[in-house]
């Protein structure tokens, strides 16, 4: 019986022991952010940590739709930064948000491999027969925006017939183009970062057909670090945050 107790006790200790090693910090802030924000927010997170030693910012980057769903089911996020108002609205309904503000905008851009195998010079060209087009899946903000742009260019149906893959997020679309597997994709202008720029060729979409994404950020109700969350939101929407976002290709909020 003693041995049994020891075994069960060991198993019971194992679980929290393993869990604790993952989050050792006292003041750890958890930020769920759209994957298009990966580069910019990583930098902003470092600046935020530098401003207040003892704070650790942990990011969970992913598609906004997926992040919203996991915030609703798990509720472990302090801050949510979404690539669309729709998914922020969803989180605002449950579990609720505060300090909501639009903090950036983003244009769409077409990207192709540098050698441009399908000769894409405009959004209409994406409807040409045989173009291997990669989009983010419908429901993912950048996927929905891309479909909107194709629709306003009048080529939605033939372009969708060219789609060879519906990717999980913008980063996956960039990867498929940078590796040269597909001929063209539609992503955010901010996705063409300094690191990505040499591996893709960007084709601008005129304003009349472009879709400008607006990014809201907010403190998620019920998060473990509400004060730190408010400070982070203020940091992102403040002058330092804006400057960093501009550096990474985002437009200021309107």
């Amino acid at each position: 019986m003693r041995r049994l107790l020891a075994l069960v006790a060991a198993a019971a200790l194992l679980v929290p022991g393993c869990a604790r090693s993952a989050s050792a910090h006292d003041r750890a802030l958890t930020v769920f952010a759209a994957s298009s924000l990966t580069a910019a927010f990583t930098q902003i997170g470092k600046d935020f940590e530098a401003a207040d030693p003892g704070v650790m910012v942990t990011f969970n980057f992913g598609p906004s739709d997926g992040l919203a769903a996991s915030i609703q089911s798990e509720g472990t996020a302090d801050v949510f930064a979404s690539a669309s108002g729709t998914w922020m609205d969803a989180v605002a309904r449950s579990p609720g948000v505060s300090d909501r503000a639009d903090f950036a905008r983003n244009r769409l851009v077409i990207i192709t491999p540098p050698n441009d195998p399908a000769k894409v010079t405009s959004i209409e060209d994406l409807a040409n027969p045989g173009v291997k087009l990669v989009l983010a899946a419908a429901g993912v903000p950048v996927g929905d925006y891309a479909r909107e742009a194709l629709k306003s260019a009048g080529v939605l149906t033939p372009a969708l017939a060219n789609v060879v893959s519906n990717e999980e997020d913008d980063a996956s679309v960039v990867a498929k183009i940078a590796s040269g597997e597909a001929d063209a994709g539609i992503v955010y202008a901010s996705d063409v970062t300094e690191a990505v720029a040499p591996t893709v060729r960007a084709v601008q979409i005129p304003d009349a057909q472009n879709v400008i994404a607006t990014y809201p950020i907010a403190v998620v109700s019920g998060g473990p670090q509400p004060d730190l969350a408010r400070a982070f939101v203020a940091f992102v929407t403040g002058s330092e945050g804006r400057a960093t976002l501009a550096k990474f290709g985002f437009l200021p909020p309107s």
Partner: protein
Amino acid sequence: MAVPRRTPLPVAVLAAIGAAFVALPLMALVVRAPWSTAGHELSSSGAWTALRLSIVVSACAAGLAVTFGLPLAWVLARSELPGRAVLRALVLLPLVLPPVVGGIGLLAALGRNGIAGRLLSAVGIQLPFTAAGAVVATTFVSMPLAVLAAEAGLRSLDVRLEHAAAAMGASRWYVFRRVTLPMLRPQLGAGLVLVWARALGEFGATITFAGNLAGRTQTLPLAVYQTRVTDPGGAVLISLLLVALSLIVLVALRERLFTR
């Protein structure tokens, strides 16, 4: 034969926790599924298309894995090839690698600009974004299981029977076909079951290498992943479909092939 004994209490308790750990999430899926609208949900979420594709892809992958896995196992178990230990580690590596790593490797090797993929595209063969690409990714991930099973079988086999057949004048091919292969059947069957079950669940290598397009590369796991946000109920139903299919494969093939 082991004498049946009373299960020691600690073993029983820990085993019960272990079983509950596996059973609970599966039960939760059953509880959460929107049963009243199940038929409609499944057809509107494209589950049937994904199911058809999953069955074809996993069957092809299992076939390929055994086709190449059995000879590999033979080399590992029977040949005098130097560096067999290294070869074995290499062949088994996909078992422990994150599948997404396999997908990136396959892109670098067989993609349009891959080191071997260039040759393929020169003759008009493209694997990424095709069902064939999904088969390749799935085979890559599941073949180690075929090798493991077949090698274990070959090693446990009584070689005297093969020697006897050969001594009686049977050709090598005849011995392999009529003596070795029948004796290997339980292990090959077990391997096939594992390979197939693994192939059914393959996600990471497939989405990385073959992409995600309904009807072409969107297998059941990819369909679950894509619908989980836009249609959570549908995702639960597709998950259950996958659970049911895996269970059928594991149970049915086990009856057929493990036991002789």
